[in-house]
């Protein structure tokens, strides 16, 4: 039995997301961060090593247990081995998001030397054509597969992340089988967020409808998951996932926006919720070279507003959802990006509700009637 009501919260900084590089070696069509393409003639900011070290040292007494390295592409960072060594020496858990292209056996060994490394690698198709159509760079499919095999060789069974798009959904099942074959542990299916390049894709009608996504999700979790030993995770707000899928014995927990427990550090050393500071200047809270992490964490007005309102202030469908405290708006950064308010609802839930697709059992009594009325109109 799980209570979805939150207890009196303690705002521990448990995790820092480091956006190590402002550039990326791939040009993914859906990327919400839209880093610029880095090649032999163009290079962009990378997070200085001393800033990473100093922020970790400041954050440990504040409860830091886990470090997420992302990008851009974290393995492009020129000091990635020093970074991994430092994380290991500090006894922190490593979470790494990579496209796998630069994951040689040397990188894989360094990752494996860290504590409980959790690695996710993006694969948007089971074939070269499909993956590379989305990732924009020739040759990246075979390199990503090689990267995954290097990880498996040192005992890391990564999670594969597939972003669902109209052109790749026919490869969902083949991708799951490929993931099995190469030694992955799980496959996570992401929806495109209408932010950054994802926004362009969305406005051009190159994303999947809510209806189609929900149908796919049902098939993935209800049918496909029974044909594979891998864990399949369809990443949508908790309102759209069954209670047993969330809280059951093999449940994967709720998909909650963890913004009250994380801090993002961008490649230029700025502090933000997560990577959203790259798009929204008012969500940059300060700079790691000049501002104390503790001061920002405890006193920044945006973080104070967030903590004061997170149990009561959600609006629209998020305010009328049974899962609101187990979901916290799903992604407050996305919600802010779209509305310039911390409390506006998540776009997916809002659209689903407008279209009569929001699960009625997750709606508070008044909202059920309203959804029925929406559907009739």
């Amino acid at each position: 039995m799980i209570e979805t009501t939150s207890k009196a919260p303690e705002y521990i900084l448990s995790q820092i997301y480091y956006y190590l590089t402002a550039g990326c070696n791939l040009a993914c069509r859906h990327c919400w961060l839209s880093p610029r393409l880095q090649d032999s003639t163009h290079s962009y900011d990378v997070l200085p090593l001393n800033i990473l070290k100093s922020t970790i040292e400041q954050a440990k007494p504040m409860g830091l247990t886990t470090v997420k390295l992302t990008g851009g592409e974290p393995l492009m960072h020129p000091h990635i081995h020093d970074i991994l060594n430092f994380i290991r020496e500090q006894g922190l858990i490593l979470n790494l998001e990579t496209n796998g292209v630069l994951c040689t056996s040397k990188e894989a060994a360094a990752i494996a030397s860290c504590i409980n490394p959790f690695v996710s690698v993006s694969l948007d198709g089971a074939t070269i054509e499909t993956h590379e159509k989305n990732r924009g760079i020739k040759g990246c499919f075979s390199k990503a597969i090689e990267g995954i095999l290097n990880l498996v060789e040192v005992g890391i069974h990564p999670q594969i992340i597939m972003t669902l798009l109209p052109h790749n959904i026919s490869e969902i099942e083949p991708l799951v089988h490929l993931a099995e074959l190469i030694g992955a542990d799980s496959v996570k299916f992401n929806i495109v967020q209408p932010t950054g390049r994802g926004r362009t894709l969305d406005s051009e009608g190159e994303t999947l409808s809510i209806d189609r996504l929900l149908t796919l999700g049902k098939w993935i979790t209800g049918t496909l998951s029974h044909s594979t030993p891998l864990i399949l995770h369809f990443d949508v707000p908790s309102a759209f996932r069954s209670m047993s899928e969330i809280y059951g014995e093999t449940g994967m927990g709720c998909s909650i926006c963890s913004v009250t427990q994380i801090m993002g550090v961008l490649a230029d050393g700025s502090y933000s919720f997560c990577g959203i500071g790259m798009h929204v200047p008012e969500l940059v809270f300060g700079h790691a070279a000049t501002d104390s992490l503790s001061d920002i964490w405890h006193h920044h007005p945006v973080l104070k507003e967030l903590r004061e309102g997170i149990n009561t202030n959600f609006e629209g469908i998020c305010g009328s959802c049974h899962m609101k405290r187990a979901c916290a708006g799903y992604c407050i950064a996305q919600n802010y990006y779209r509305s310039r308010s911390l409390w506006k609802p998540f776009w997916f839930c809002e659209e689903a509700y407008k279209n009569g697709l929001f699960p009625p059992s997750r709606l508070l009594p008044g909202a059920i009637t309203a959804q029925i009325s929406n559907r009739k109109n």
Partner: protein
Amino acid sequence: MNKEHDYKLNNYSSIGINPEVSLQMEQDNWGLLYNPANDSTMGINPESIFLWKQLETGTTIKHLTCKIKETYTGVPYDIEEKITEVINNFINGGFAIIQGEDNTEQRGEI
């Protein structure tokens, strides 16, 4: 804790549901309890739903333990503790209330 009375939960406490609370069933046989008074929701599994249904007519931990043993096979030896934990969660969230002591059970009259 029960706000209206000062009863403490024991095996013979008479426990009932808070009448304002609604149970919403889901397709996977889990359910959601919703207490409008404090706008709180609790997700409950099928076993907890079974307990909840017993509470609808008022019951005790002792009676619930017997009922579970009658209904399910392979019941763990510490079932009474597990039931107490679930009931405590119901009470602490304002979903259930302690109505008093059931003295008939203590006297062995059932």
